[in-house]
């Protein structure tokens, strides 16, 4: 289906393959994420959410199974091609390390464009500034990243994830380290971007509030997706 941003077929992931302590973390995941979808990925700690997200984001490879990004099969790509595809199609927001502190807020937002094009130019600066402005962050543009609060940094990180106009943003507990108010701010921002630009989001979260605010909830338990309609595990 051409309109799928992401499709997983029988994706399995094992760690320590071939060693005595080999363990399978993901046991055959089938999952499709449509264009413009805004989904939450929930599940208990250790259920494999981050592992799944890293595979979806091309940071890690599945042990078996297929992964399609915007219709492209990814299993046969080498590291270089995966890196390029990742840079263009996927934006990341992480829980712990938000921005690169050696750069200003604006430069952090420019970074994905700079990485892709090699040299800084006025167009990418404008693009970054437009993003910051659209998200109401322009007053921080010249602040060094570490001069911003956690909530401010995470909002800049969302802006950075959008710099390449990716089809999909993957966020791994983006509000996990923030106070309730900042968390709400960051979440609202992502919602608004999704509404305005149609960017797909997959947000790993422990917060029921956030999960409720999403259009779809995917639950992962012990490395398996709980079928839709099944009774959710007690939180």
């Amino acid at each position, binding site marked *: 289906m051409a309109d799928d941003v992401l499709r997983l077929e029988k994706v399995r992931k094992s760690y320590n393959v071939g060693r005595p302590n080999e363990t399978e973390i993901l046991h055959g995941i089938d999952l499709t994420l449509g264009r413009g979808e805004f989904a939450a990925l929930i599940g208990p700690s250790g259920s494999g959410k981050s592992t799944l997200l*890293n595979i979806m984001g091309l*940071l890690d490879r599945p042990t078996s199974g297929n992964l399609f990004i915007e219709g492209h099969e990814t299993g046969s790509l080498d590291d270089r091609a995966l*890196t390029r595809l990742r840079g263009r199609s996927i934006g990341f927001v992480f829980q712990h*390390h938000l921005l690169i*502190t050696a750069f200003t807020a604006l430069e952090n937002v420019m970074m994905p464009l700079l*990485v892709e094009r090699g040299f800084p130019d006025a167009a990418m600066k404008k693009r970054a500034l437009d993003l910051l402005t659209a998200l109401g962050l322009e007053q921080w543009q010249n602040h060094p990243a570490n001069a911003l609060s956690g909530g401010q940094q995470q909002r800049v990180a969302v802006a*950075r994830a959008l710099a390449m106009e990716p089809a999909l943003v993957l966020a791994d507990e983006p509000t996990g380290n923030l106070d309730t108010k900042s968390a709400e701010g960051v979440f609202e921002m992502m919602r608004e971007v999704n509404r305005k630009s149609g960017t797909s989001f997959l947000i790993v979260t422990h917060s029921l509030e956030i999960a409720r605010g999403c259009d779809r909830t995917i639950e992962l338990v012990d490395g398996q997706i709980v079928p839709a309609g099944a009774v959710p595990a007690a939180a």
Partner: protein
Amino acid sequence: MNRWMPFEWIAALRFLREGRMQTLFIISGVSVGIAVIVFMSALLTGLQANLTKRVLSAQAHITLQPRDEIARPLRLGGDDLELAIVQMPLQRVRSIDQWQALMRVLQDDPAIVAVSPVAAGSALAVRGDATRAVSIAGIEPDSYFRIVRLPDNIVAGTVRLSSQDIVIGTELARYLGIGVGDRLTLSAGARTSGALTVTAIFDLGNRQVNERYVYVPLRTAQSLLDLIGGVTSIELTIADVYAAETVARRLQPMTGAAAYSWIATNAQFFSAVQAQSLSSTVIRLFVALSVALGIASVLVVSVIQRSKDIGILRAMGTSRGQTLRIFLIQGALIGLVGAVVGSALGAGGLLVFHDHVRQADGSELIPLVLERSLFVAAALLATLTGVLAAMAPALRASRLDPVVAIRG
């Protein structure tokens, strides 16, 4: 961010800037190392230039002589040989065949700077009752003084060599008890010169030379040695002093004469110089090695500290190659900046050393040699060392698993 600066350079510079203390310390460390290397190199160059100058003050770079002649120039032989020649019939002093034609060929050779013919032999210097065995060198002053800078080493009088003049050394003057303006006679076998006037007394910095050598015009020597129109050697100055042996080996078959380089005739001096160079090279190598290890260890730590940044950059699409370059550039920059600061320190040290460490009479101990090439070489080598030292940490950074880096 500069438009002309690539992403890797921007990231490298920012990382160095952010790691202020680390960067400052490692650059200081590299600077000290480079300063030592620059200081030692320049000192050694000065020292060797000085020694070489002394050895060469009374000697041509290359001397051409007739082939098969066992009797080498007297100054090169031992005492036996000198005595033997003094007592030999004069026809034993052989001239170089076709020496004028040979001179023209040599003058056209690009490696050769100056050419001068010499008629040399033994004689007795006579002054009243006093006699002394001497080596006479009959020279053409204009060309010869371009080879041996006699006029620069005169302690009394001024060099003038018209047909009845002679220039002698300080020791001989002392033995014979004569000074500028006094006369002496030279006799070789049956022949005797007329009275020769001492016009100048030299000190070539070598007692042996000051005692034995006398300089007379070429014609005077030729008639005294029964060598009319002939010369016993052709003396050469070449462009690259240290290439003397190579040039000599080339000239030998070309000229049909025997060519002796100053390097071959001063083999002992040269092995001393070589030992000195070798030990200094070893020291400099170890300093360079510790500089490299310092850079490597700082960058290894930096890669660990920056692993999250590296993970984020990789997630944003930074390739392994770009990651590798970011750290190689940091190594290069540390090396380069360290080299610039270190060169300045080294040069400053040399100036202080040159001004304060002097000989007893206040003259300089070692000449100050500050060549641009030394600083260029230091900068290039330090940059290269930085890149090589950064290799291991940079590879480590590029191979970092982004999943692990981000989770950490």
